[in-house]
């Protein structure tokens, strides 16, 4: 038998504690390599890696801290992949009578009662809170609910507040809700109401050779069973081996047409800053869109994602004559997409995405009135140059 090798040290977001502690021993059994996990807040772990921690891999609860490390060249970019997805849910204590459909104008405040508070992570710093803020914003509920928030330190605490009945409602991940018998899911947030919830993983630059095999194991069936059982969604990219072809899997509907369009050669186009002069593009054609500073853009309608960090990019495009009632807008970068038709914001029908798919980051489907000009507002992009295509079904 093989001699015991150096154990792996994996830094993982605290919210992955449960599943990884189950997965770790399985890997050890199969490879005879011990895996040690250090669970803490993603922020702390990222900074520790920056300070020279000899971690082999990092599993973050959000993209931000992974980006932070990537910018500093502390992870092997080619090993980065989105492993897991999650859903945002509204929960209530098990015995609560509250029923609610999460949509615009939903009586969320009313459901809280006169003094009740809505528990979630701190929207300023905790990932679950950030997602909740976006989602509530998109449902036009944020402004009313902001002052009624309980801003927990992490998602587990937010969950506990609801489980203990201290807060009548809470917003947590589906996985957390599933694990806590004292709470009940009131409703899932529409996927279109927030950016996809993804857990990226990557090997660090100082990773041992063994790391790749462990990351591969996490994408394998054994691990997948654990993740699925815990309520995570397995992102498509997770199926393919790290470092090989783009991990473009795990989408929730068929995106083969979009993938195909994205393999073609892009046309250059510059998005404009005013609605009346929006640059016209064709459908089923890949574009490389140049955006401008968001602050310079005057949108036709206020973008759905109401608050956007400074320094992000935006721009306006239009399609003159779509022949169908369903279009999909697909973009590579992490940007917010709004479709305006007939002067009104069109709500997305459904969306899918995969942060680890190099080609397709986000596919959003809209139902539009046929033969009406359609305006596409791109906002909140972290990159100035994005790839974008509008496809018809």
């Amino acid at each position: 038998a093989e001699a015991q090798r150096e154990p792996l040290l994996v830094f993982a977001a605290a919210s992955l504690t449960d599943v990884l502690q189950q997965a770790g021993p399985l890997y050890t059994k199969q490879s005879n390599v011990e895996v040690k996990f250090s669970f803490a807040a993603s922020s702390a772990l990222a900074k520790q890696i920056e300070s020279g921690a000899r971690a082999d891999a990092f599993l973050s609860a959000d993209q931000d801290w992974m980006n932070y490390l990537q910018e500093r060249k502390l992870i092997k970019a080619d090993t980065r992949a989105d492993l897991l997805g999650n859903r945002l849910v509204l929960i209530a204590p098990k015995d609560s009578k509250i029923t609610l459909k999460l949509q615009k104008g939903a009586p969320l405040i009313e459901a809280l009662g006169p003094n009740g508070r809505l528990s979630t992570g701190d929207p300023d710093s905790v990932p679950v809170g950030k997602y909740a803020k976006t989602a509530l914003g998109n449902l036009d509920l944020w402004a009313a609910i902001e002052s009624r928030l309980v801003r927990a330190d992490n998602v587990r605490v937010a969950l506990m507040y609801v489980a203990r009945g201290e807060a009548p409602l809470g917003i947590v991940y589906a996985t957390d809700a599933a694990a806590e018998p004292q709470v009940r899911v009131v409703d899932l947030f529409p996927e279109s109401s927030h950016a996809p919830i993804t857990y990226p993983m990557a090997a660090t630059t100082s990773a041992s050779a063994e790391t790749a095999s462990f990351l591969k194991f996490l994408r394998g069936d054994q691990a997948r069973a654990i993740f699925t059982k815990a309520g995570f969604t397995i992102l498509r990219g997770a199926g393919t081996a790290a470092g090989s072809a783009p991990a473009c899997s795990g989408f929730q509907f068929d995106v083969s047409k979009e993938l195909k369009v994205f393999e073609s050669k892009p046309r250059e186009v510059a998005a404009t800053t005013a609605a009346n002069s929006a640059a016209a593009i064709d459908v089923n054609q890949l574009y490389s869109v140049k955006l401008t500073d968001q602050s310079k853009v005057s949108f036709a309608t206020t973008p759905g994602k109401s608050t956007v960090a400074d320094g992000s990019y935006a721009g306006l495009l239009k399609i003159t004559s779509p022949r169908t009632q369903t279009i999909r807008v697909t973009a590579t970068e992490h940007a917010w997409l709004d479709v305006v038709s007939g002067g009104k914001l069109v709500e997305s029908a459904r969306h899918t995405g995969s942060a680890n798919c190099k080609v397709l980051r986000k596919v959003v489907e809209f139902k539009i009135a046929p033969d009406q000009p359609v305006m596409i507002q791109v906002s909140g992009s972290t990159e100035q140059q994005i790839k974008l295509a509008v496809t018809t079904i």
Partner: protein
Amino acid sequence: MMLTAAEADAVRLSLSIALRSVLFSLPLAILVAWLLTRRRLHGRLLLDAFVHLPLVLPPVVVGYLLLLLFGMRGPIGGWLYAHFGIQLVFTSAGAALATAVMSFPLMVRAIRISLEGVDSGLEDAARTLGAGAWDRFFTVMLPLMLPGILAGAVTAFSAGLGEFGAVITFVSNIPGETRTLPLALYTALQTPGGDAVAARLATISFTLGLLGLIAAEYIARRVRRMLGR
């Protein structure tokens, strides 16, 4: 250095919460310290252990325990709410409570040491002059313990300014209500690129603590002079 509105809020909150926590726990701490120095008290060790609980447990756990007890559904919190309409969880009053609980052992320890340092001969002298236990306590022990009490209060106040885990767990991190300096600092640190803000807040924290120390030092010196040391 001008403070932003949010920072000013956090400073104000931190000060008021630390102060409230000290004021609330001081009399209790003196009492407990006194009880703990009486050799013959039954269950002294148990009381001692109970007082030290917040010291040996991680703050987050203390926060959880507080939530269990003082939450609206907790036995004490529920009762308080039902009878007095007092809500502790998610309020600054709750933050003060959590802070008080966390710094309580420090306060008791400091006071106890100074209590033990008081010459028992002086208490004897007061007895022969007709001072009963409480009288003695207030007229002899308390003044002579003053340096220790002061030290305990300052320690508690300073620690209160930095209290984090128990507070964030018990009352969460609500701007204007429970987001004290350390919580604001933590929030900043959780944001990539928040380091500059964090540094600013840390500086404010530190300055406040320093000011408190200077004040305490000044008072302590006066007290010591008063006691003729």
